């Protein structure tokens, strides 16, 4: 008899969600994590003695259903307050989006924003069933899966002819066209468009999918607003770990998986366990991978167990990350021109062209001259992440290519790091004098340190051809894979990345059905 019902590879948030659900159903679950603590890209990182931050610094739409099912509050998850999204302006004329209201824009833009939000939230609601359900497998007429499509159809009919026409027009628009139609203020345009650019190497002028990515985020309970839980992202990871363990799941850290063991017999292949990097083997009835699809199939399974066409589709997934991470340890609170407190999610992108130009550089393997980024100062909401009176600045720096022309080396890393700090200094002039320590992680660094292919935060691009029943690719898009007993449960699956827990939840649902 196998030692476990399910082995989960990777204790990122999706792995933990999946583990908790399976353990609650009575399964014997083992979660294997290569790092020395759970969390994946959400894990706490002490980048300088006493200074902490996770890689992913905010939560966009973690599902309330999952929080309730897994009793996360009882396991220590504090109420997550939405943080304002702030479009920074060097002049101090910032744009602030908070709880559905806009400040800092002109009268016309403010009026346009009301109509824009009404429409976008309406569209987000149409697509809502998509993100929460397993996608149908084409050719398989599973009733409940097909019902998801019917549901979308009904939702579309319900919004009326005018909005439906508008939905079909807008759904694949480039972000720039959408923003130009509604608004004049450049900072407002970049701030609203930002979430459409997260997850895929796209820029405001890129056609398709940017609007869909925005709607994905707007469909969540927080309607697109990001939250930072009490205790930071790590507070959420902590609650998930505790919930999983309370239900009987075992979480083993510093246990890197080297191979997924595949049993071949006359009836075909089945996954039967894993071999750890240290040589130990653990058997289970099924193996569920929270690692990215390329790592799972090409490294952990091995192409000799996969068909040629399928292997090729996995190979062709776009997994090159394009977001770097800057961590600053500061000896006092950063002061942004014209901003009372840096307690929001602050976006630095002076106009849509600035984003486009940064993207243009990265397309050709170069670093942007003027990086665009989003900044959070986690120590303002959660002082415990830095020593008394000191602060942490965390920045997601967009369009830093995974494959840098000429390759990554310390000089190249320092150059883009300095450019990033220079850019921040335009908004927070005193920042350089406050820095006690700085750390810059390129996508290549993230790949190495967090074992995620390409250093891609979302495992593989969140783009139209890799969404829904094509995520990551057909034959692996319903959390099941071509190998019986092997499942996927993380960002490389539908619905995609961000800290939502939805992929882990859906995978557990599939496994238990």
């Amino acid at each position, binding site marked *: 008899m196998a030692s476990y019902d399910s082995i989960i590879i990777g204790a990122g948030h999706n792995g933990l969600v999946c583990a908790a659900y399976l353990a609650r159903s009575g399964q014997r679950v083992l979660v294997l994590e290569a790092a020395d603590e759970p969390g994946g890209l959400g894990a706490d990182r002490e980048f300088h003695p006493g200074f902490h931050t996770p890689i992913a610094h905010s939560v966009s739409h973690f599902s309330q259903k999952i929080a309730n099912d897994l009793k996360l509050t009882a396991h220590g998850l504090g109420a997550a307050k939405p943080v304002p999204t702030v479009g920074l302006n060097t002049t101090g004329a910032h744009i602030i989006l908070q709880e559905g209201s806009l400040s800092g824009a002109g009268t016309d833009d403010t009026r346009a924003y009301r109509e824009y939000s009404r429409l976008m939230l309406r569209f987000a609601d149409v697509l809502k069933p998509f993100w929460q359900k397993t996608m149908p497998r084409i050719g398989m007429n599973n009733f409940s899966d097909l019902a998801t499509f019917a549901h979308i159809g009904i939702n579309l009919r319900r919004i009326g002819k005018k909005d439906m026409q508008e939905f079909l027009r807008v759904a694949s628009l480039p972000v720039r066209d959408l923003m130009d139609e509604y608004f004049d203020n450049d900072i407002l345009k970049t701030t609203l468009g930002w979430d459409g650019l997260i997850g895929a190497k796209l820029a405001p002028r890129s056609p398709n999918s940017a609007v869909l990515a925005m709607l994905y985020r707007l469909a969540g309970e927080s309607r697109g607003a990001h939250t930072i839980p009490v205790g930071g992202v790590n507070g959420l990871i902590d609650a998930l770990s505790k919930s999983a363990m309370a239900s009987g799941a075992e979480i083993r850290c510093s246990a890197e998986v080297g191979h997924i063991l595949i049993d071949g017999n006359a009836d075909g292949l089945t996954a039967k366990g894993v071999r750890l990097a240290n040589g130990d083997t653990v058997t289970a009835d099924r193996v569920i991978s929270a690692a990215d699809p390329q790592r799972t199939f090409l490294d952990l399974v091995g192409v000799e167990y*996969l*068909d*040629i*066409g399928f*292997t090729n589709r996995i190979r062709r997934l776009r997994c090159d990350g394009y977001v770097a991470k800057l961590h600053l340890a500061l000896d006092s609170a950063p002061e942004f021109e014209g901003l009372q407190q840096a307690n929001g999610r602050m976006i630095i992108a002076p106009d849509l062209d600035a984003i486009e130009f940064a993207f243009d550089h990265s397309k050709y393997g170069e670093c942007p001259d003027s990086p665009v980024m989003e900044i959070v100062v986690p120590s303002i909401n959660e002082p415990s992440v830095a020593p008394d009176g000191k602060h942490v600045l965390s920045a997601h720096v967009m369009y830093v290519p995974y494959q840098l022309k000429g390759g990554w080396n310390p000089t190249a890393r320092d150059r883009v790091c300095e450019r990033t700090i220079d850019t921040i200094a335009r908004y927070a002039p005193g920042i350089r004098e406050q820095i006690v320590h700085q750390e810059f992680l390129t996508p290549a660094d993230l790949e190495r340190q967090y074992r995620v292919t390409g250093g891609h935060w979302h495992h593989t691009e969140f783009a139209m051809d890799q969404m829904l029943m094509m995520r990551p690719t057909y034959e692996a898009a319903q959390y099941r894979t071509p190998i019986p007993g092997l499942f996927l449960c993380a960002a490389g699956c539908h619905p995609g990345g961000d800290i939502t827990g939805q992929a882990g939840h859906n995978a557990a649902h599939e496994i238990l059905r």
Partner: protein
Amino acid sequence: MKFDHTHFRQALLRTPFHDRFVELSTTEEWMAWNTYKVPRVVDKLPTEYFAVRSGCAVMDLTPMEKYRISGRGARDYLDRLVTRDISKLKAGRVTYVVWCNDEGKVIDDGTVFQLGENDYRLCAQHHQFDWLLMSARGFDVDIQVETHDVAALAVQGPTSWSVLAAAGISNLEQLKPFGIADLRCGDIPVTVSRTGYTGDLGYELWMDPANALQVWDAIFSVQGQYDIHAMGLSALEMVRIEAGFIMPGFDFNTAEATIRNGYDRSPFEVGLGWVVNLDKGHFTGRKALLAEKSRPAKRRLTKIVVDGNKPVGEAFIYDGKNGKQTGEIKCATWSPILKANLALADIEFINGRLPAQLWARIDYQRELKWHSAWAECHSHSKPFYVPEYRSATPPMRY
């Protein structure tokens, strides 16, 4: 691979043997085969056919797609590519293979030559380079196109061994069927395999294109002693049907060229179940083929003998005279040696079995007027023509 940048001046490439065919051709009947110009009929079709069956026929094989697959991972690579167990193949041996896509549908068939340790040649009917490269990812292999760099000649027929021996290729008598030997023709290095597509005794010669004409001339230098004829593809079509060999892309649509749902075929459906080794470990299409095997057979490419002597062309097959249509003839020939109408037919099974009766509706012309007639068909499990002498080692000397 060498690229000839003047290729556009020539619609079809010339093989290294082309000049000799031009000298011999009385019909000027040429056709295209994999971008090369080859004879359909060189002189007279009956002569070329009977050269294979009772003398010696020489055919240009150069246009066959040839790939060199080498490296430490070559065997594992091939084992995942094809349905047959390549780990059982030994150096100096050839095996017939078929390969499928993920859905278990046939992409092509061909032969694998193990030339040495970690060194293989794959011969294919159709161009496969993209599929082979796609398959290579994750394996330590090097794949090269050899089609244009290796000249190949088929020497087939009961006297073929005697002809080659007389032409100066010695040490061939112990070469067993599906064996390979590196030999010399005079002082020219020639690799000889005891293989062919005729079902008769026969050999295939592989050589540097620069030496092609010298080898050809050596063979034809013994024409006074033996009945040797250059042969075109029309005669090959007759003998390969007699031998029960199938031709992907003609007898059934290959998977990568299929657009319509259900128009592609699995190895089981084209009668190649015997080259599918489901126990050897994983290979591409295995999952689909395991599933197919657990279901009743839907159809089979079946060898049939059609009663009578009316020429069978394209015809539908019915489950009785005036019955329900249940299949179609894919290729057919009158067999001069068996005095019978032979055909391969794609036949839909009924409840997993071949229909009890098979009838063909044959449309034929008499002085440009169409007639139609019913002819009963009889299925045949073995190849139609298997001369005993073809596998004798050493072969019979003439």
